């Protein structure tokens, strides 16, 4: 049993997904609610089990569990549960309450967990593909909607391209070193750097950058965010981002850890372009989901700053940033999902006009998330930025920090504009009553975002321990 414990969360997710699938196929009418709650129970169970799992190497070094993987897993589980809660009501009202969706989420999370725990390029790729395939389908969940199917297709085609680049990079690395094991790679690449392996590394980075939608590999993001059902977008904005960023961290510091001098500049450029694009392109948006897409691109840029630092403090900062981002993000998506007028979902920023007068609590929660994303103290988003900036500064990346500060000033514009629309523009949103599940996610998100300053220690110490576990 002990030997099974580390893999038990993954088993729970995989087998549970199969079981729910059988129930879903057989039961009439379509048991969407049941599978959703079942998936939530499975995710919570997996999260609890994973907390108890010991550090170990599994399957001859294919998977590895540590404090780091548990930290990232916990983030993914939390985000997935939040996304399912948000989908509960939304999917029913949109007429897309299919029992498959929670199962797809479970399989996607399984892929993410494998990805996070990967200790070999092969397991990395398998996890990567599993979660990608699940998400491609999820994006096209509203299969009668042109926008949704277009989003799914776009995501799939571009994702396939990125996947191809990733696997090509892996093959190059394997070709030049003769191994796919992280540990072996770390040893080999430390001593002798071949051109081929390094070029392979660039391909791998591009594949991962696509997943976290770092510019210039972000092009899919705005279209998919806008086209996919909002409940799916809420998932896209959180769980896969956390998982892919964790994978990014473990790949860059693990097998390619000795190549810091080579990849540091690329990560810096990725971060700069992402931050700049996230800040600039969002200004012109009128659709709140597109706004969130560009916002997530920018946030991934900031998170990459920690990685670019290449230090343990940098890893810790990135983990803190991603954790805070996940909470702000699902909170904001809860607000977006609650934007529904006479049964019809609305997505324009201008639809929020006058919200503060009608629904002060709702407007205040949204304002909190916007302030936090803009990085205004004392909200959590400020501390995320503080940690990545100070890590980058201590690593001597002054230019990066200066650009980060400039772009965060620019991005404050569009976050604050949302608040301005809610509080100062005339209008009557007349939104429908917000369902309890959405209210719950919104309230939890708002509470964590606003009160983080009172009790930051658990997250900071956990992230510190995770970073230590990763860097050895």
């Amino acid at each position, binding site marked *: 049993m002990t030997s099974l414990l580390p893999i038990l969360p993954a088993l729970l997710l995989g087998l549970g997904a199969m079981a729910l699938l059988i129930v879903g196929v057989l039961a009439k009418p379509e048991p969407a609610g049941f599978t959703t709650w079942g998936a939530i129970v499975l995710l919570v169970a997996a999260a609890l089990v994973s907390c108890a799992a010991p550090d170990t190497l599994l399957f001859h070094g294919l998977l590895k569990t540590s404090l780091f993987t548990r930290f990232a897993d916990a983030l993914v589980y939390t985000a997935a549960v939040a996304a399912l809660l948000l989908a509960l009501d939304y999917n029913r009202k949109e007429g897309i309450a299919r029992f498959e969706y929670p199962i797809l989420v479970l399989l996607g999370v399984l892929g993410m967990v494998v990805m996070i725990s990967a200790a070999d390029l092969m397991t990395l790729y398998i996890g990567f593909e599993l979660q990608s395939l699940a998400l491609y389908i999820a994006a096209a969940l509203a299969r009668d909607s042109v926008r949704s199917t277009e989003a799914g*297709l*776009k995501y799939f*085609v*571009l994702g396939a*391209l*990125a996947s191809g*680049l990733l696997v090509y990079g892996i093959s190059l690395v394997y070709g030049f070193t003769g191994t796919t094991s992280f540990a072996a790679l770390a040893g080999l690449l430390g001593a002798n750097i071949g*051109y081929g392996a*390094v*070029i392979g590394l*660039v*391909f791998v*980075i*591009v594949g991962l950058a*696509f997943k976290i939608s770092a510019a*210039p*590999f972000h*092009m*899919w993001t*705005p*279209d998919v965010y806008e086209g996919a059902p909002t409940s799916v977008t809420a998932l896209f904005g959180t769980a896969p981002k956390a998982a892919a960023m964790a994978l990014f961290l473990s790949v860059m510091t693990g097998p390619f850890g000795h190549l810091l001098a*080579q990849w540091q*500049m*690329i990560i810096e*450029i990725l971060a700069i372009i992402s931050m700049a*694009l996230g800040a*600039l*392109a*969002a*200004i*012109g*948006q009128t659709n709140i989901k597109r706004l969130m897409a560009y916002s997530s691109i920018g946030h991934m840029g900031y998170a990459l700053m920690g990685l670019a630092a290449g230090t343990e403090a940098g890893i810790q900062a990135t983990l803190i940033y991603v954790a805070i981002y996940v909470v702000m993000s699902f909170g904001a998506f809860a607000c977006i999902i609650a934007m529904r007028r006479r049964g019809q979902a609305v997505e324009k920023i201008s639809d929020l006009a006058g919200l503060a007068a009608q629904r002060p609590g709702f407007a205040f929660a949204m304002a909190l998330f916007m302030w936090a994303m803009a990085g205004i103290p004392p909200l959590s988003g400020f501390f995320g930025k503080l940690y990545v900036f100070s890590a980058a500064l201590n690593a001597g990346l002054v230019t990066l920090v200066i650009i980060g500060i400039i772009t965060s000033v*620019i991005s404050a*514009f569009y976050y604050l504009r949302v608040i301005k629309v809610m509080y100062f523009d005339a209008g009557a949103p007349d939104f429908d009553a917000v369902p309890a599940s959405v209210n719950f996610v919104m309230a939890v998100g708002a509470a964590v975002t606003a009160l983080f300053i009172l009790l930051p220690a658990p997250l900071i110490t956990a992230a510190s321990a995770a970073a230590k576990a990763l860097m050895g």
Partner: protein
Amino acid sequence: MYTLIAVLAPLVGSLIAGVARPVIGRHAAIAGSIVFMLVSAGAGILAQLGGVQAPLHIASWISVGSFTPDWTLRQDELSLAMVAMVSLVSMLIHVYSIGYMAHDKTAPRFFAYMSLFTFAMLALVTANNLLQLFFGWEGVGLVSYLLINYWYERPAANAAAIKAFIVNRVGDLAFAVGIALTYFVFGSISFDQIFANVAAQAANGYTLFGTQFPVLEVIAILLFIGAMGKSAQLFLHTWLPDAMEGPTPISALIHAATMVAAGVFMVVRMSPVINAAPVAMEVITVIGGTTAFFAGTVGCVQNDIKRIIAYSTCSQLGYMFLAAGVGAYPVAMFHLINHAFFKALLFLAAGSVIHAMSDEQDIRLMGGLARKLPVTWLMMLFGSLALAGIPPFSGYYSKDAILGAAFLAHTPVALYGWGLGVFTALLTAFYTARVFLLTFHGQCRAPKHVQEHVHESPLVMLVPLLVLGAGALGSGYLLRDNFIGANFAQFWGPSINVAANSPMGALDAVPSWVAMAPLAAGIIGIAIAITFYVLAPALPAALSQQFGGLYRFLLNKWYFDELYDWLLVRPALRLAKFAWRFGDEQVIDGVPNGLATLTTDASTQTVKLQTGSIALYAFIMLIGLLGFLSLFLWVR
């Protein structure tokens, strides 16, 4: 303890009237303010009767190294006399305002300001260190701004308030520098410690503009410049006549009990330092004497009843500084207290006249009001006689003593001050009689509809007038023995430092022709006024024709406003306009606006890339990949 109540009660009243009004309503707000003023006045008088006590420590404020100012109430004779006078006069003005402001829509705000003003003044006079004094000093300055601007829809009130504030800033700058220098030199701003160390600093110098000055002279002159601003002395006097833009009770409060008295009080309070600075004393004497004369000349030709009284305030403050300058501080205080009563009386009586005349202030459009306003007439007469220095009214005693002290000091500057002072006594008597005669006697020159409305003020306004009238009649005689008589040293105790060589000791030994001179001047002045305005009414017009240049010079207040406008205001406006047009609009606004435009342009361009074409997306990804690869190979 009484002092504490006297100081804090107006603050409570102010909060009730100002903050609690929406809850408790208009009448309760005004009543609250009045009740707490009555408490304050009662406590102030009890404190005075209770006698001198040790300073009352209230709280520590801040502690930075050796700089540890405390909130402490000083309760020596000087403070107690001021507390009693300020709270009493202010209370009377509060009561008077019930009637005067009865028709004003925002009267609670008015009472809140007045109580706050009183609090600031009381905090000033009970200060135990220079910082606390400065707190009250600035508090008075701030609230005076609010009060002068009480009718804030009137552009003239705005301008007057801003003028008062800015002119006071000039003096306050010097005052603040003086305080800082005091701390720098003495290592403390507590009065006791400063006074104890004056002797030790007497020989020390301070280098200013490359020249060595005795440090105490520099401090004394800086502090006096502050006092000049607050007490409207020559060069910084321009705000005071304009300050009558506020409601009349405010003028009474500013001109009589508070604000302008602060400068004189501060000089008296700092007497140990001033005494050690002979040059500064000569400056004070000259400025005081000149101001008395200047304001007297201007007062003779003005036509606005409040403006004339305002110039008389300026002039009387000059007398007080003249006394302080020759070292006769008790005499300055004596005149300050007397002046507080009769000047408050004059202003409130003038307010009663204005009230009766449907807000008309031009004395050329008055006349013959004596029969219609008998009580006001009598009270105005009391105030006028006190101001003109006619016995047995209070002004006679103190003005006489001031001029006697100036003569006895017998230095060239003191004699200069004495000469001007005696001549000013003539001018004072002349313009006071002029106001009185033009307002109350002769034919009524007001339009018909105004005449019909003329009525005596309600009782609530007359009672304070009667009390103040009694003060104007009796304060000089009653206070004389204690304030400046034989046992003045015992009365003031250590609160006022009178130098051994001051003329205080020999006040009774004034030559009789010197003692008679001010009274004679006053009688001549009144005689001239009677000639001009009763016996030969054509004479003033003829004279102003004959001496047109002089008349216009005086009418335009020696052209001080025009001079300052040309010298200071316009260049400042030009500089401000440059800073606005170029500095603000071009640079400060231009740079961020340009950046913002740049940002939105960049945003438009980036968004254009997002065409929705999957081929383009894939292309951009591959370009990115190629870019990274090239970079990689190039860097290596």
